[in-house]
């Protein structure tokens, strides 16, 4: 019994020892677990803190310093890839002259730039000077939100010396007139850097090959159709090319003809909703595109062509005519320096009204109204638009200078474009603006006409339907 008890006690003590050991092992392992959990949590949080720090540093490094500007540095945002080198050179000259550092920051393509500016406006991080890409309504929203400085006083100072430098049409695009529909305080809100207009260019060599006089391009619609057909017949090369995959370019030509066929007053009355798009004059405008398509005047694939491809086609002499803006001078120079071409107004359909083309300020700069260096920014823009700087910019980029006095030093083709600056108009200077959705329906409708999917009347009816819906929506 005793033996048994002893044995039992021994067993007990063994068990107790084992338990003790096990407990002690458990405790040790628990301690280790606790430690490793603590380490893991600490590690995770450490990683999080490091991540936040990196993100913070990146954000701070990437954001423009509007609120805490570096002493004497102006920051400018733009989208003009072809002008960056020239801008940098001008910035260097300005720093040399005035001791103010100017930094041009390029953001391209233009779509990405537009997004950046919108995001910066929403987060109040716009730079000292920037450009806005968009229509008048878009521009007005920026002004009304307090992101754009009123430059009227600076423009009018010293007997309006600054204001008088520019083409009036160029300045008008940057101006809000009295009683403008957007409710913006009247004034000048941006500085035009260069001007542009959109016309037709024609290939002189192809004219010669087809037996046409290269110095007298067609002035009337019928002459234009006949010339395009003749060139196609003799050379096998297509007539008109343009980037009509970008619908604003279709809108531009359609507006040219709307002004020519019905006059400005009726166009404005249509936008106001007083004249329907089903009016015979509008149907006639749409009919012109049907005629071009049916007569084989348009190059194949024009409805989905981007303007860069259209420019390439014209520069490579694969089309006799191109509908393009004055910026094309620089583009064609780069693509084919030997190209022999001339500039012509789109051929008239009616003699009752003048042929009006789109034009005005090409690119403009705005001053951030909330910038602490507002005055310095205005001073820089004043300097940038002086004759010497404008001539330099024009010579480097082949763009039409906004400063009238710089015109004496530009190329022949550019001067041809410049000669028609008085015939220009632009939706941004009209007293009323069309609903974007109506414009889209109108332009897409023209594409449908060109691909022979819809008749001009069908498109006119569709546009009118959308117009009525949009008007009803805005009244609600």
């Amino acid at each position: 019994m005793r033996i048994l008890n002893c044995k039992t006690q021994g067993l007990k003590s063994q068990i107790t020892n084992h338990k003790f050991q096990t407990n002690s092992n458990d405790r040790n392992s628990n301690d280790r677990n606790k430690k490793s959990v603590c380490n893991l949590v600490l590690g995770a949080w450490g990683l999080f803190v490091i991540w936040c720090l990196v993100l913070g540093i990146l954000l701070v490094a990437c954001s423009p310093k509007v609120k805490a500007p570096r002493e004497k540095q102006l920051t400018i945002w733009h989208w003009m890839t072809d002008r960056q080198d020239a801008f940098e050179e001008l910035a260097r000259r300005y720093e040399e002259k005035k001791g103010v550092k100017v930094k041009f920051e390029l953001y391209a393509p233009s779509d990405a730039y537009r997004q950046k500016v919108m995001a910066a406006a929403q987060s109040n991080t716009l730079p000292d000077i920037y450009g806005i890409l968009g229509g008048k309504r878009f521009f007005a929203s920026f002004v009304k939100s307090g992101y754009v400085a009123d430059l009227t006083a600076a423009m009018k100072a010293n007997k309006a010396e600054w204001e008088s430098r520019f083409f009036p049409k160029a300045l008008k695009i940057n101006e809000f007139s009295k009683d403008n529909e957007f409710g913006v305080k009247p004034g000048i809100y941006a500085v035009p850097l260069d001007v542009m207009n959109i016309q037709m260019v024609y290939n002189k060599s192809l004219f010669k090959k087809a037996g046409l006089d290269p110095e007298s391009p067609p002035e009337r619609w019928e002459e234009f159709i006949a010339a395009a057909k003749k060139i196609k017949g003799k050379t096998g090369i297509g007539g008109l090319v343009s980037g009509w995959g970008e619908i604003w370019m279709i809108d531009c030509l359609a507006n040219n003809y709307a002004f020519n066929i019905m006059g400005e007053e009726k166009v404005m009355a249509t936008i106001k909703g007083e004249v329907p798009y089903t009016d015979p004059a509008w149907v006639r405008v749409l009919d012109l595109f049907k005629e071009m398509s049916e007569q084989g005047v348009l190059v194949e694939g024009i409805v989905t062509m981007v303007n860069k491809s259209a420019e390439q086609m014209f520069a490579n002499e694969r089309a006799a005519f191109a509908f393009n803006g004055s910026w094309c001078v620089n583009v064609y120079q780069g693509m084919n320096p030997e190209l022999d071409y001339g500039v012509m107004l789109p051929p008239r359909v009616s003699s009752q009204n003048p042929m009006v083309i789109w034009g005005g300020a090409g690119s403009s700069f705005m001053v951030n109204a909330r910038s602490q260096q507002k005055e310095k920014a205005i001073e820089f823009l004043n300097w940038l638009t002086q004759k010497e700087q404008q001539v330099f910019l024009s010579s480097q980029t082949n763009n039409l200078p906004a400063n009238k006095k710089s015109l004496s030093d530009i190329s022949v083709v550019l001067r041809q474009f410049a000669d028609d600056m008085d015939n220009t108009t632009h939706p941004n200077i009209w007293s009323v603006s069309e609903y974007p959705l109506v414009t889209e329906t109108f332009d897409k409708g023209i594409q449908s006409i060109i691909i022979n999917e819809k008749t001009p009347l069908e498109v006119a009816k569709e546009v009118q339907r959308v117009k009525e819906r949009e008007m009803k929506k805005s009244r609600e």
Partner: protein
Amino acid sequence: MAKRTFKNYLFILPALLLFAVFSIYPFIKIFQLSVYRWDGIMPTMKFVGIFNFKDIIFHNPIWWRSMWQAAYITLIALTLQNALALVLALICDRGIKFGNGYRVIFFIPPVLSGIVVGLIWNWIYNGNYGLLNHWLAQLSKWTHISYFSNLERAWLADPRTALTSVAIINMWKGFGWGFLVLLAGLQSIPRQLYEAAKVDGANAWQSFWRITVPLMIPTFGIVSIMTILGAMQIYDIIVSTTGGGPAYHTEVPITRILAAMRGNLQFGYACAMGLVFGAILLSVSLIIIKLSRKLNPLAG
């Protein structure tokens, strides 16, 4: 217990914070914006309730057209693209020579940028000097069959061919993904099953139909969801080829959302479009998940 729960929460908190800032907050913001009329710039917005949703669902035929067009592209991707991917995966699974080389080649299109792919195909489809028209002309010359030369056209600008042409580009760009996933799925099927089937006298077709297909159903489900989500959200190829044209023939939901946001300055409306689109995609994905679970012989 409470201590342990607290510890667990402490673990997920960093990830949760990041997720909240970069995913939950924007998601809630989109919901908020979708009930406003806002141009994206003005500090003031106008509350319009469910008007944007009502307008999209009942009065925006272009939106629904863009949806059907994306569905057409998706259908081609689901059928032709995945069939091609499956055939190529089956061939590579047989241990053919240069199998790894083919894998690399097939995976090149998916890793290319959509814009680059679009530009390459723009050149192929070009109506004036495109490669496709050139070959059709050559074919017509060699065979003396005028049918081939009659096919010549500006493929992306012709309303009869524009959408299908875009769908083919998307198919070319996307089949490599399906190929890789399907190949991985095929390689996970135990070889013994095929050997046993062979012993039992099953031919190649029976092995494919009775072993490969049932065991590949979960993989088919994943590939289908990936294809649907990818093809419905097609954007870069459209932008670099047709821009949505001619007229509205190649518009897809993403191009419409961007048109509303950027062209028409309707930020709120664009957000509502995004939500409607998201809801449709989510529903389709859930249906496919359910379907593949139901068809999967190994599930439950």
